[in-house]
């Protein structure tokens, strides 16, 4: 009973910790949301009343522990509140921005996995050949180059020096498929480059390790062809753990999405969060972080579930 409940308990524990840490760290950060909201006029004598008004309206004048209590109660009842700055419901803002980020990350993963699997497996098959050394070198480079720099290079080349692709903005897939692709191409490539680097190195290590296992020698001694040995048999052994890695990388990718969305002007969750932080929009920051945390935890649980299904030994 306790064992079956354990993953859910863990889920809620992580959620509570994240929510609390965000709440505390936001309030420890310098900057008064009421002052930021009023803008440059906030220092004037006649708006002091306004300031107090705002504090009262958003509950900022109450003791922090009370704010925390209200905040937790609201989350449990599904109310993330309104944005301090735009006054629109946080849930609505997130719901508008999330598809952009989900598309960005999903496409990056879909692009990166086949490339990484092919490069990693073939490099491991021809270990220490010039091909292998090139692949591993490029993969390390792809991992090491910062996303914002690649993003800016792309922008400069494809959207500024030439005008092949739009420099900024977004078009929803359902309304303008071609525009969607044109807007997504550079951001997806930027994010995928990092992922290809990480995953290629992982697939390479796993495959090289698998190919040295006794059961591969046995299959060879039984006349199984090298191609089927690599892509049918060794593939399952070395690719199953990749699911876990992709799950773990989701967190890193969301971090990457913040930067990529900012560089390419995509109206996604990352950009929403960044602007909320800069404007000390407490409810919006809390809402964004909550949404991202829930997504990361759920996706990792999903990755774990798939891994257990594919790996008969881990299932027990």
């Amino acid at each position, binding site marked *: 009973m306790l064992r079956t409940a354990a993953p859910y308990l863990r889920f809620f524990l992580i959620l509570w910790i994240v929510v609390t840490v965000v709440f505390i760290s936001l309030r420890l950060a310098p900057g008064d949301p009421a002052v930021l909201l009023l803008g440059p006029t906030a220092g004037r004598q006649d708006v002091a009343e306004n300031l107090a008004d705002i504090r009262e309206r958003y509950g900022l004048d109450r003791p922090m522990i009370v704010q925390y209590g209200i905040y937790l109660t609201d989350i449990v009842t599904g109310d993330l509140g309104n944005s301090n700055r735009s006054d629109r419901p946080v849930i609505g803002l997130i719901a508008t921005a999330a598809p952009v980020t989900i598309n960005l990350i999903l496409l990056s993963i879909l692009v990166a996995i086949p490339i990484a699997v092919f490069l990693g497996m073939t490099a491991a098959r021809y270990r220490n050949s010039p091909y292998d050394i090139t692949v591993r070198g490029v993969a390390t480079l792809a991992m090491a180059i910062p996303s914002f720099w690649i993003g800016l290079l792309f922008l400069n080349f494809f959207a500024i020096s030439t005008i092949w692709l739009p420099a900024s903005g977004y078009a929803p897939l359902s309304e303008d498929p071609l525009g969607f692709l044109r807007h997504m191409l550079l951001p997806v490539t930027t994010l995928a480059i990092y992922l290809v680097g990480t995953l290629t190195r992982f697939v390479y290590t796993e495959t090289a390790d698998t190919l040295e296992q006794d059961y591969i020698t*046995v299959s*060879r001694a*039984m006349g*199984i*062809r090298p191609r*089927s040995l690599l892509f049918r048999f060794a593939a399952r*052994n070395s690719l*199953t753990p990749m699911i876990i890695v992709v799950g773990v990388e989701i967190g890193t990718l969301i971090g990457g999405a913040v930067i990529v969305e900012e560089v390419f002007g995509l109206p996604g969750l990352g950009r929403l969060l960044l602007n909320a932080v800069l404007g000390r929009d407490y409810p919006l920051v809390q809402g964004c972080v909550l949404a991202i945390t829930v997504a990361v935890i759920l996706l990792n649980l999903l990755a774990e579930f798939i891994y257990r299904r594919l790996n*008969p030994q881990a299932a027990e």
Partner: protein
Amino acid sequence: MSSLLHVENLGVTFETAEAPVHAVVEASMTIEPGQRVGLIGESGSGKSVLARAFMQLDSRRVTRFASGSRIDLDGRDVLSLPESDLHHLRGDVVSMVFQNPMHSLNPSFKIGTQLRSVLQAHRKISRRDATGRIVDALKAVDLPGAEQLVHRYPHELSGGQRQRVLIAMAILCEPKLIIADEPTSALDVTAQDTVLEIMIRLSDEQNIAVLMITHDMGVAARFCEVVNVMYGGRIVETADVRTLFSRPAHPYTAALLAATPDPARAEQEFRAIPGTQQSRLGVSSLACAFVERCPFAQDVCRNAPDMVPLGETHKAACHFAGELPLDRATPSP
């Protein structure tokens, strides 16, 4: 009747970063159809490398075969076969059973899938016929519940069961030769016995020749008709099993037999052979492989001896073959 396997002057050298390793030197041996042949010797004597060369299992990129080497297997000149033809040989004409059954099956695939992939690599066969053939093979190695076993994963089986699955895999395509590389060393005594029993029966019933690689004298005595003794990369003695155990002609064979613990004389000390095997890194040595450790060594032993024929099947690579006072009763000095 022509031999199933005929190996002549086989030299196997591995190119390493430091220097070449002469793993096997001028080895010659013959296996007749259906014959059970032993290959015994201590660790590092080159037994596995020799046997793996028969199906070219070690990567050809780092393996060099001495000029004049010849391997004839079932009428094929193995050393001149292109890599693409070797796949037809492996698993079909010659298959192999390995030492460690715990690591020899792919943990991610069901037993049935793994066996079927071997069958389908060599035969055009429907899924249903394949399953029938697999169940037959599993029954032939005395595995109960064969129909259910194909749906199991390797980790659900014991070591002895897995080794039997691997033997079933080896006989699946009705090979003419099975190379068994210490198939019992990783098993407990009861499982060892079962596996040997099954292999003897299969060899008899299906006329499959078996090359048994072992360092266990008991296994060799029980299983083999003919035994080859290997030392320092060379085959130093070949004899039918009775002759080898009663009248060894090579000082190494005699010392090896004397080192075998005898339960009837429990009080005796463990008689190890003094010294260690020489490294075969670098230049290939021209001396007799055993010269450093041989109590009878003379000046003439600085030149490698040829195989001296001593009987119909008995021969030994020693300058003094047949002349030395060797038998089991004589402890090695």
